């Protein structure tokens, strides 16, 4: 019993010590976190660009991503598309686009645009002459009536199989790999003819 009392005394000492002697852990702000996908569509004929943004500042946290589309598309127009990928939890925001460009063989964007809006083709290549998708061309159609709305889904795959059937043409079906971004925008064609 005497031993037990001693033991308990030691235990409580250690408990108390362990409870207060520790330094607090440092916060980790994940560098690799992707919070934002920003797509800029610039009409080749000139005019103001349209920005599509998909922003999820809490990463895998519960908050829903915020989607914004700065304006409507014009019909029968060719747009130069460019993509920026950011980590906006850092200050200043970290540009992940550069990283993707450096490791372009391991990344590919896939575009799924509603046919009632138009079509998209790749406008860039990695060192193996496979598409990346950081630059692309989007061609809108001439709808029977405006406005018309449809979805644009942009997916970024890390380590896809770029040589699988259809992948070079932008078909995601056989791409495999790991999804880093999956963003859905609703776009509208509405302009005076």
């Amino acid at each position, binding site marked *: 019993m005497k031993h037990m009392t001693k033991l308990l005394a030691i235990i409580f000492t250690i408990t108390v010590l*362990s409870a207060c002697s520790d330094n607090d*852990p440092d916060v980790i702000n994940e560098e690799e976190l992707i919070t934002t*996908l920003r797509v800029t569509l610039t009409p080749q004929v000139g005019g103001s660009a349209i920005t599509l943004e998909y922003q*999820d500042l*809490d*990463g895998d946290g519960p908050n829903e*991503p915020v989607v914004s589309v700065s304006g409507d598309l014009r019909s029968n127009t060719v747009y130069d598309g460019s993509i920026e990928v950011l980590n906006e939890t850092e200050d200043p925001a970290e540009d992940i686009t550069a990283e993707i460009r450096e490791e372009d063989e391991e990344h590919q964007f896939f575009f*799924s645009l509603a046919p009632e809006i138009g079509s998209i083709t790749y406008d860039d290549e990695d060192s193996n002459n496979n598409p990346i998708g950081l630059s692309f061309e989007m061609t809108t159609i001439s709808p029977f009536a405006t406005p018309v709305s449809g979805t644009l889904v942009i997916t970024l795959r890390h380590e896809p199989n770029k040589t699988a059937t259809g992948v070079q043409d932008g078909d995601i079906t056989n791409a*495999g790999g790991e999804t880093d971004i999956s963003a859905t925008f609703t776009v509208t064609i509405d302009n005076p003819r």
Partner: protein
Amino acid sequence: MKNYIAVFFCLIVSYGFSQDCTYTLQGKIIDFHDGSIIEGATVYLKNTQKFTATNATGKFSFTNLCESSYVLVISHIGCKTMEREINLKTDFYGTFTLEHHSEELEEVTVVGKSTSKKSNSLAEARLSKKTLERYSSGSLGDALKEVSGVSSINTGNAIVKPMIHGLHSSRIVIVNNGVRLQDQEWGIEHAPNVDINSAESISVIKGAGALAYASDAVGGAIVLNAKKPVLVDSLYGKTLMGFQDNGRAYNISSSLTKNYANGWFFQTNGSYKRFGDYKAPDYYLTNTGSESYAFSLEGGFKSFERGWNIFVSSVHNEIGILRASHIGAIQDLVNAINAPEPLIQDEFSYQINFPKQEVNHLILKAQYYQRFESLGKLTVQYDFQENNRLEFDRRRGDNRFKPAVDLNLTTHSFTSDFLFDSNNDWKIKTGGLFRFQKNFPDPATEVRRLIPDYNKVEVGFYTTVKHQFSDNWSFDAGFRYDFAFNNVKKFYLTSRWETLGYDVLFPHLIIRDEGTQVLVNPKLTFHNVAFSAGAVHNLTDTEKILVNYTYAKRPPNISELFSDGLHHAAARIELGDLQFEPESSNRFSLSYQVQKNKFSLEADGYVNSINNYIFLMPTGAEQTIRGSFPVWNYRQVNAIFAGIDLSTEFLFSDNWKYTMRTSYIYGQDKKNNIPIIDMPPFQIRNSIGYTNKKWSNFSSTIESEWIGKQTRFPNFNFLQYIPELDREVLVDISTPPNAYHLVHLRNSINLNWFTKTNTKLSFNIQNIFNTSYRNYLNRLRYFANEVGRTFQIQLKITY
């Protein structure tokens, strides 16, 4: 927990009848500690010229004996030569247990004639050295499947976690040479860090009643027993070498033991295993290679009155994770489930690429015991463990070669117990525990911590009593109390903290606000009480019944409390709950055992009612930039588990043997009235073996393994909108794979190449028919088939 020190002595349990000089005297010699067969023991009939030695099945035989009284002299390496008188009146058969020393009697509770057990009234199984040698290249989880009622939950082929009666991970305690393993055991993809080559035998205790080990092992205990030193001048060793075609794997394991008659002893063990990519029948399982090495050293001094020993063990495992199983979002999982073959396949390679795990586990132990005259024995022990777990993921940029998980778990344990054994009918053991544990997740990973920083203090004490009431009745009871204090510091995403409602429930826990994240400091205290009571009744000399009731509690583990994010491999968000209560288990078990010369049978039935059973279930979905993920919350419900294990062995003749093992388990969530997930399906293993000692101990066994389809499963399938497809898809994560039947062949033969060494050659074929199948209890079953046909060859040399 003092079973690593011991000595041999011999004990005889037998009886006989009468006739002329035509009688035979036969027997079998087994190890008292683990019931394993003792080969090569010398048996001598005193005052005759008759000598013999036991064969590979531990048997010996004398023929043409007269009706007389004989003195049987049994000796074996390291055993004090023992004499026994047998009054021969008829053909005689007896089982003889070799034992180290009388000291051993108090270390294990002896029940019946031939088994030494860690518990009294609980069903218990033991894997002998011989069985373990067969699994020399495998893992603990693989070997334990030899025990009916034990299955495993796997992540691929190399990460195999034992499961007892449907319970695994934190619900099972693993004790390695007297040290309770502390190795982040809560995780399904965290295999126990032990080297089975260092174990002399393994005991599996089904149920929580082994209170000397823990109070929280509601599933049971797995005890790896170390080799016991013997007080005889001796030096011996063993080397096992193996090769298998599937995975082009090779392994070597070697051990050396040196004992001195004056009490000093020294033993060492080392092993190395290397696997390349496994192959399923139709394709390579890319990135399933692994590399392991382990080393252990034990030395000390022992005598009857006192002794000490020091034990050091280091285990390193590097395990590749199936490349195709690495996914980022739910659409990737859908693709994988729908693909008939893994989406990433490559040629064979030994290379272990990302994703992979690298785990190092170190144990240091020092133990001392002192015996007090007419009172008992005191044992004190200190052990230190360090577990470092690195998990590497497919990452981008500068972080490419950094681990995504880096956990460092250090544990100091002081244990002490006193055994009162001066009264033969009453054995009382009482002991205490003090443990300090610290987990440090290294922030250098630059990934939010999976498991938070914490310090944990545990204090416990227990008493177990065993009473031999009469020849046919023995009773046991135990009580244990454990106190645990956890001081946790964790960062939550502010958005998560608020969504979980913790900002209202626990605003006082916040010690720092970083804007998007908050640092919280929960201090959690758990009181754990467990008790157990049981009885063993010998119905006849060959039959007995075991009855046991155990109440045990398990505090929620660190991941059940603190999980708060995306589990990449499962493509789901997993959320713990700070408010969890401990699980409490009421378990009743009944066993019936028959042990005859040619026939043995064991049937174990149990009902385990667990209140506040913690498990993961889907509760909704969340949208992130990666896409939508299902959210799985840890939940507590009242659950019931019931089942039966059956194993039997029948000897047709000296040469032919039939064995059968089967088990069935029923698990039900009583609140939602649905089956519990991940319950092993009905299974049956039959084998027929032929052994002929005249043909250099040739032995051949064919085994059939039939695993049914689990029909009782909770339907957690869900509909998921996949934007790329622009439609909803049913994500079938619940439906178990079909039943499968596998056939295996095992052969072995002794090669008497050298006079002073024994050489044994084994040749095995696993999955002879190259059957393609998937295993319900493999978490990578969505991605690939299991391993196909495997040829194995193994050479064992003892010297």
